[in-house]
């Protein structure tokens, strides 16, 4: 500003011919930014990003209209058939729309809870954002001519504005400051927010240079320099988004890979453990089966050998005891024993399950929705209960493999029911076959190649170990719901 100040109001003839190029660059950056924002929306599903995209698109589209109607740029009186005031009305809308769009972003961000959970994006909303931005730009352009006859005159002549322009100026400054404060107070404050603040700062400098230094007079040195800050305002977020996207992609790829690897390692060690247990139990089992058959054959002989048969029966008893010891040893080596009288907050339990299932859900394009915190607490071992709920969530995700994209939602919730706290996991899959509904006593039959049966079985063992119950039902609106009823602890209210 200091550099520009001495020569601020000098008129430069070179600025007008540069305007179309300037607008082209602005439009390019705006469309670029909006594209990145919409693709982030597709990835993250946060509607707040669409408000930003709309602000940038509107800014870009109206820049074209603004330059086209600018007197002396494309035509002596401007295109679009407007009069002297048309360009100024469009400029006034642009001054206000950009900060208001960013303000809308900040307000939407505040409303959205649980940003760590993936939500499905809606193609309709994304397309509507583009269409509405374009329509708004068209309407403003079309109505500008008409509006200029109603509102006070903004321009004295083609270059000098009236006092009414000051009102636009201050309104723009106020909107920018309000948006900046709203964004600065966002929590969590992300990198995008930081760059939005930088963009708003540049936008403020642009307004200040155009309004005060150039006194609103068009095509002066200060006016041209202010335009450059406007360019910074649109470019900074585009470049920041680009860097952020590349970095985030690289990070999430390596993080997902790590999660998948950790999961595989756990599965592999479980498999090895299973094989070891199977072998340890198979030996006594083989001895028992073969001994029983041998005993039968000793007795069936023409001359029954009671001694040998007795010896086999003793071996059967001993082997049964050995199998028991194997199981006992297993229980002892895994059983530091859950501390089942701990207090577990139901809300944080569901939150940690949602976080653990994130990679799986994102891979299957499933949204995890969990209700607001209830303050309910259950008695039990946090690790075990997390595992039980996680198993149900993983089943729910897998059950929705054939469900259409927009409806793939796993809903987690907690509610009080007398002395019990009920955790529920519902999906929008095909529902359960009747055989599964009454939760039969034996191992669950699974139609899937791996898993459903075992996961449910483990969940039930854990829940029943906590003195709770698992119930399964089909929802009237489609899909299945599993409910875990656990004894309530002292609620955390």
């Amino acid at each position, binding site marked *: 500003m200091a550099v520009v100040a001495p020569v601020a109001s000098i008129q430069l003839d070179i600025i007008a011919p540069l305007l179309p190029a300037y607008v082209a660059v602005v439009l390019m950056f705006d469309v670029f930014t909006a594209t990145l924002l919409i693709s982030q929306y597709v990835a993250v599903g946060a509607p707040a990003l669409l408000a930003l995209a709309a602000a940038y698109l509107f800014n870009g589209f109206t820049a074209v209209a603004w330059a086209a109607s600018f007197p002396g740029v494309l035509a002596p009186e401007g295109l679009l058939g407007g009069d002297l005031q048309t360009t100024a009305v469009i400029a006034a809308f642009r001054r206000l729309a950009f900060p208001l769009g960013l303000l809308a972003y900040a307000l939407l961000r505040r409303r959205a809870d649980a940003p760590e959970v993936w939500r499905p994006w809606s193609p309709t909303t994304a397309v509507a954002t583009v269409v509405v931005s374009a329509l708004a730009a068209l309407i403003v352009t079309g109505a500008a001519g008409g509006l200029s006859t109603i509102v006070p005159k903004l321009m004295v002549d083609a270059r000098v504005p009236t006092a009414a322009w000051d009102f636009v100026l201050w309104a723009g400054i106020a909107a920018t400051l309000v948006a900046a404060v709203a964004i600065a107070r966002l929590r969590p404050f992300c990198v995008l927010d930081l760059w939005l603040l930088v963009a708003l700062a540049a936008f403020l400098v642009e307004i200040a240079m155009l309004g005060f230094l150039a006194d609103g007079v068009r095509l002066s040195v200060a006016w041209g320099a202010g335009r450059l800050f406007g360019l910074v305002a649109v470019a900074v977020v585009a470049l920041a988004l680009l860097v952020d996207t590349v970095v985030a992609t690289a990070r999430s790829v390596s993080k997902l890979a790590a999660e998948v690897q950790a999961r595989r390692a756990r599965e592999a060690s479980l498999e090895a453990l299973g*094989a070891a247990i*199977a*072998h340890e139990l*198979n*030996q*006594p*089992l*083989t*001895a*028992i*089966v*073969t*001994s029983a*058959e*041998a005993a039968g*054959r*000793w007795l069936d*002989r023409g001359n029954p*050998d009671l001694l*040998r048969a007795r*010896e*086999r029966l003793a*071996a059967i008893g*001993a*082997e049964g005891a*050995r199998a028991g010891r194997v199981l006992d040893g297993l229980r002892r080596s895994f059983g530091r024993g859950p501390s089942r009288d701990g207090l577990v907050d139901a809300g944080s339990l569901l939150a940690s399950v949602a976080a653990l299932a994130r990679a799986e859900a994102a891979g299957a394009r499933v949204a995890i929705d969990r209700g607001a915190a209830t303050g309910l607490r259950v008695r039990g071992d946090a690790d075990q209960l997390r595992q039980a709920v996680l198993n149900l969530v993983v089943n729910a995700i897998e059950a929705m493999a054939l469900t259409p994209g927009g409806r793939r939602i796993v809903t987690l919730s907690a509610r009080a029911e007398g002395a019990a706290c009920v955790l529920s996991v519902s999906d929008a899959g095909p529902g359960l076959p009747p055989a599964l509904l009454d939760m039969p006593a034996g191992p669950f039959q699974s139609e899937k190649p791996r898993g459903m049966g075992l996961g449910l079985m483990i969940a039930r063992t854990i829940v029943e170990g906590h003195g709770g119950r698992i119930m399964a039902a089909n929802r009237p609106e489609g899909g299945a719901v599993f409910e875990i009823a656990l004894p309530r602890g002292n609620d955390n209210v």
Partner: protein
Amino acid sequence: MSDETQDDEEQAVVLVVDDDASVRDAIVSLLESVGQKTVAFPSAAAFLAAECPDAPCCVVLDVRLPARSGLDLQRDLRAAGNQTPVIFISGHADVAMAVGAMKAGAVEFLAKPFRDQDLLDAVHRALDVDRTRRCEAAALDRWRRLRESLSPREREIMALVASGLANKEVAATLSISEITVKTHRAQVMRKMEARSLPELVRIADRLAARDEAPDASV
């Protein structure tokens, strides 16, 4: 041959190799309950250290053994020219492992726990295989000993006759008279205890096949 089978039926031995004493005892008891003579070993090393019985036998072999596995032991036996039939028993019925064992010549691959009848059937089959093998080996040994008694000229003539040449052609090949060939041939048949020319040809063929695979000792 059926006479021989009856004779050594009582002496046939099943060799059980399993590191788990309880499983080993149970299998031994099962086999003994049907009157089968059985010897048990806790490891591959103990099995190899033992004298191989001079009777029809088969091995009931656990796949999972400490140190050398059952599959290794099977490979060792084959490499040493020991053709004793093997029945595998395994705690983890791994398909690939079973296929490998069967390809290497196992009689049967049973998953633990197995049905008693399945094991007894397999043992029966394995002992039959071993009996046949032993008879053939014994016959070959005898023929080999008989061949030792032939003179070099007689051996030459036996080889030519076995290759399908007529007396006249043999005489031409060796530049001797047909009468001499006839005399030698009669001598060969007498010494080799062959009752007919086709039998002599068959014996010569078997001996030739045996000579080509010298490691297949009994």
